[in-house]
């Protein structure tokens, strides 16, 4: 009887261990710092390009230069996604190297989702730059698009905790903007920088919160693992 109870306990511990290991692997959030650093870099670079471009356009008297500047901005922004992918593949594992590397069975985010995200995220920025869409609604749509993409991408990419926290924070920001909470630094025809500030801020909060959760899960794993420290025999 006690043997049966012991067996059941071991089975439950093992089930629990599997679940905790999954959660632990899915909540490794420090690699998020790489895209956040890239976002900051992008903002500094893009603001400089836009300011210089506009100043030059005004000086030579051609407002059409604005279109070229916007195209450069969009190209830089979306090509940085590719750069971030490369950086993550190369340096993403370094953050948790001491605890070991786990590669999860991730699914690719389909192209249609990337396209939908690109259009709904950047579209309002463009519409706003041409005075077609007010900043308040543009910001709301861009943040909503980002939030939904994070939730969907997090699920597909097996980074559920990260996707949920980042997604919900972005959606909360979107909701606050929609109900009229005035966003600081938003001028009526340029909200790209505040949008980036929001996303970097929410990203930093996400990285910290999820990392704390990850440490908690690791502590739980150490409590629950059925073998304790150095206890098992080598015999078969």
């Amino acid at each position: 009887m006690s043997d049966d109870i012991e067996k059941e306990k071991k089975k439950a511990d093992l089930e629990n261990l599997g679940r905790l290991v999954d959660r632990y692997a899915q909540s490794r959030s420090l690699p998020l710092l790489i895209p956040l650093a890239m976002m900051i870099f992008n903002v500094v670079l893009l603001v400089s390009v836009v300011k210089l471009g506009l100043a030059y356009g005004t000086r030579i008297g051609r407002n059409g230069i604005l279109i070229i500047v916007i195209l450069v901005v969009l190209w830089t922004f979306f090509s940085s996604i590719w750069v971030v992918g490369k950086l993550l593949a190369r340096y993403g594992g370094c953050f948790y190297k001491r605890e070991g590397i786990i590669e999860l069975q991730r699914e690719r985010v389909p192209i249609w989702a990337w396209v939908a995200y690109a259009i709904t995220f950047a579209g309002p920025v463009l519409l706003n730059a041409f005075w077609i869409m007010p900043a308040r609604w543009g910001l709301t749509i861009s943040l909503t698009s980002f939030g939904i993409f994070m939730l969907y991408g997090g699920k597909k990419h097996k980074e559920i905790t990260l996707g949920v926290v980042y997604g919900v924070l972005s959606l909360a920001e979107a909701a606050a903007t929609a109900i009229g909470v005035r966003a600081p630094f938003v001028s009526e025809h340029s909200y790209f920088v505040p949008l980036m500030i929001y996303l970097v801020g929410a990203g930093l909060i996400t990285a910290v919160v999820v990392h704390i959760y990850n440490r908690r899960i690791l502590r739980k794993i150490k409590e629950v693992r059925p073998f304790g420290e150095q206890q098992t025999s080598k015999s078969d």
Partner: protein
Amino acid sequence: MSKKQVNQIHNSINRVVHEPVRLAILKILTSAKEVDFNFLLTTLGVTKGNLATHINKLETTGLIEVKKEFRGKVPHTSYKITKTGRRQFQKYWENMKALAPE
């Protein structure tokens, strides 16, 4: 369930899978694409020698696959479960469920 059936199931239990550390290794590998040695050390809390012995046993019985490569100049070893390993692990759980008291 008759005693004969119980004995049959008992005899069909894979002894390599039945060991707790190896069972835990397989459990982790079923949900991951690939893990490395350090990850198993962190999550299982066994000694390096002990883990190496169990991994060796799983490898020689064809339940897991070992991949050795260089990442830069550093050697890196990772493990993934084979189709046989996945099947054996599944079968083991089915046997255990059949044996578990109602």
